């Protein structure tokens, strides 16, 4: 009784400490009951504006500026760094009071956000791998260009896409985008001038090939009509640090900068029907990519899984060991980690690049295949040992007995698991958006980053997934009936 109590206490302590650690980590200024307190989000990596310093604390131009302004204007805040796109949407959904994340002011964004005084002028530049020999945007024709989801740079690149005839692919963070170019999976990347220069200064192997162009201004943003007091404080504080030289000191600390001009885009019709019409081609191509990934993923994973699953039951110790190791590793790794490892890690190790779609399919094959292998092995082991003995005693060789006697019985037991795994595979394809595959989920992300219509676009995406799942389930039921009647 006593012991149980101590255990409970210990685990409670652990949980509290963990929670405390998380909260503490994301807080740069402590709450004070007298001063107003805000929750402000920023990007996870957007150096030199925000990035983790050596001690894990967020630093950069935005960070130092925010801290100086908070001190001047007597408010405190909790900082929550998450992916830019999620942060931007979080402000609109009320999760956060404001965002400071090198966010370019655009007319579209001004429809849903209120921006503070523009605090930084920037230009957009393109960079390539030095090994590529590319020196000019004209050489990008037919090649793929890496863009970061939801950024002004991406918008700019798309606006000149027709002129230079390149294809585009999207990433959720700068680092993955840089890697795609450095490893040769994409020919070039577009990024804000200071961000790109800072990255190159800090070891990213890229070469800038253009002058800063078509820039914009960064602004501190709150949801339209909300947090007026915070916005006023930001503007007042910004004016003060600009005046007393703190701002220049901060900027100089991280870099010396250039400036450029800016132009925006037209409004969009934001009803669900309007969104569907406008983005019809994007949605269709996203759906096709998702279907391709799902169907090829299922086929390859099934072949791989059945093979590995059968190895778990053959009378051979080496095969057993191999099978359980493969299942252990690939079932144990999160799909996202596996995808990053194959797409970014493996090329670094072997020196050969992998197209994102191939990396995605390999990821699905290994991960979903490991799950399939586990239930194939289980299903086959569930078949009574006497069945194999009876088949062998008739003179059937092992594999013939396996195919004609064991497999048909085992597969019948496995059908529900297969249907389940197919549905999981479909959903798991969404994770592959992280390595820049523009499937259905990423399509949604890209559209939202431009028009900020999160709810409506996700509604459309969710409906599309449900439609595909319904079709797949019908197909599976039909196949099951056909198989069962045999």
């Amino acid at each position, binding site marked *: 009784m006593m012991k149980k109590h101590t255990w409970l206490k210990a685990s409670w302590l652990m949980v509290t400490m963990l929670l405390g650690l998380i909260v503490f980590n994301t807080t740069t200024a402590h709450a004070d009951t007298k001063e107003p307190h805000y929750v402000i989000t920023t990007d996870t990596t957007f150096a030199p504006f925000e990035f983790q310093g050596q001690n894990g604390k967020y630093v950069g131009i935005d960070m130092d500026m925010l801290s100086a302004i908070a001190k001047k204007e007597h408010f405190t805040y909790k900082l929550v760094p998450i992916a830019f796109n999620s942060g931007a949407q979080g402000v609109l959904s009320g999760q956060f009071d404001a965002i400071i994340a090198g966010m370019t002011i655009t007319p579209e964004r001004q429809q849903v956000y209120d921006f503070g005084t523009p605090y930084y002028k920037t230009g957009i530049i393109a960079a390539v791998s030095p090994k590529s020999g590319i020196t000019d945007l004209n050489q990008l024709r037919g090649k793929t260009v890496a863009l970061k989801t939801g950024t002004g740079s991406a918008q700019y690149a798309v606006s000149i896409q027709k002129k230079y005839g390149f294809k585009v692919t999207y990433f959720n963070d700068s680092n993955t985008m840089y890697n795609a170019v450095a490893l040769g999976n994409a020919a070039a990347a577009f990024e804000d001038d200071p961000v790109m220069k800072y990255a190159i200064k800090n070891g990213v192997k890229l070469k800038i090939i253009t002058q800063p162009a078509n820039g914009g201004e960064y602004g501190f943003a709150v949801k339209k009509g909300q947090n007026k007091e915070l916005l006023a404080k930001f503007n007042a504080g910004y004016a003060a640090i600009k005046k007393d030289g703190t701002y220049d000191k901060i900027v100089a600390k991280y870099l010396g900068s250039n400036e450029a001009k800016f132009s925006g885009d037209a409004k969009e019709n934001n009803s669900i029907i309007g969104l569907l019409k406008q983005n019809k081609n994007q949605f269709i191509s996203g759906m096709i990519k998702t279907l391709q990934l799902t169907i090829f993923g299922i086929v390859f994973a099934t072949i791989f899984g059945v093979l590995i699953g059968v190895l778990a039951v053959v009378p051979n110790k080496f095969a057993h060991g191999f099978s359980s190791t493969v299942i252990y590793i690939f079932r144990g790794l999160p799909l996202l980690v596996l995808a990053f490892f194959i797409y970014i890690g493996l090329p670094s190790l072997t020196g050969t690049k992998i197209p994102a779609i191939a990396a995605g399919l390999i990821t699905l094959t290994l991960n979903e295949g490991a799950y399939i292998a586990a239930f194939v092995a289980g299903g086959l082991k569930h078949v*009574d040992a006497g069945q194999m003995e009876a088949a062998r005693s008739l003179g059937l060789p092992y594999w013939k007995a396996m195919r004609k006697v064991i497999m048909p019985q085992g597969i019948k037991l496995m059908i529900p698991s297969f249907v389940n795994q197919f549905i999981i595979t479909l959903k798991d394809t969404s994770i592959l958006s992280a390595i820049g595959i523009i499937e259905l989920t990423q399509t949604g992300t890209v559209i939202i980053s431009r028009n900020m219509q999160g709810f409506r676009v996700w509604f459309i995406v969710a409906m599309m997934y449900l439609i595909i799942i319904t079709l797949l389930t019908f197909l599976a039921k039909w196949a099951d009936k056909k198989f069962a009647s045999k």
Partner: protein
Amino acid sequence: MTAKVTVKDLHKAYGDNEVLKGINLEVQENEVVVMIGPSGSGKSTFLRTLNKLEDPTSGEILINGYNLVDKKTDINKVRENVGMVFQHFNLFPHLSVLENVILAPVELGKMSKEDAKALGMQLLTQVGLAEKADAKPTQLSGGQKQRVAIARALAMKPSIMLFDEPTSALDPEMVGDVLQVMRDLAEDGMTMIVVTHEMGFAKQVADRVVFFADGYIREQGTPEEVFNNPQDPRAQDFLNKVLNV
């Protein structure tokens, strides 16, 4: 006349547990050998080594002249000639009765599907189950299942049949039909090795009765010799218990 089965100094151990401690046995063509003995005496294990469902630890086994201990021997060829009937039937539940019977000859290319079906129907008639040809095994009673299992083994036209307690899992009223099929087989001259607790069957059908205990063959001879005048004290004790219930 050469022996169909020759076993010399056969040992079988699972780890430290030795279940066969030096078995010697010869079985002649057309001979019916019935093996009896208490549970755990090693008789079933011995039977299973004869078609290599168990690997012997040491010793020699010759079946139709094939050396089972030699790794180069194609065990599938040997098994084609050695039919086996199991205590729990082990019919293939996903196949119909007829499909169970013809699976091996068709898959091993012994005959065309048509010929196999004709043979299958003939064998099912022989065991009295022709009308069940299209039924699934789950629709049969235990005794019917075991008769199908015998027909399935016979479809490979084996020259030796092994029976591993074929009636032990049956309700008493089912036992007679199965034993009758076995009796018919014996009368047709099949070489048979039978592990059973059916002493009546042993008395009537066996050419020779072999008594197992503790991993050894303790006694063997004609049914009259073994049942009426056992020499080994373990055999005396065992027979006393099973015959005078």
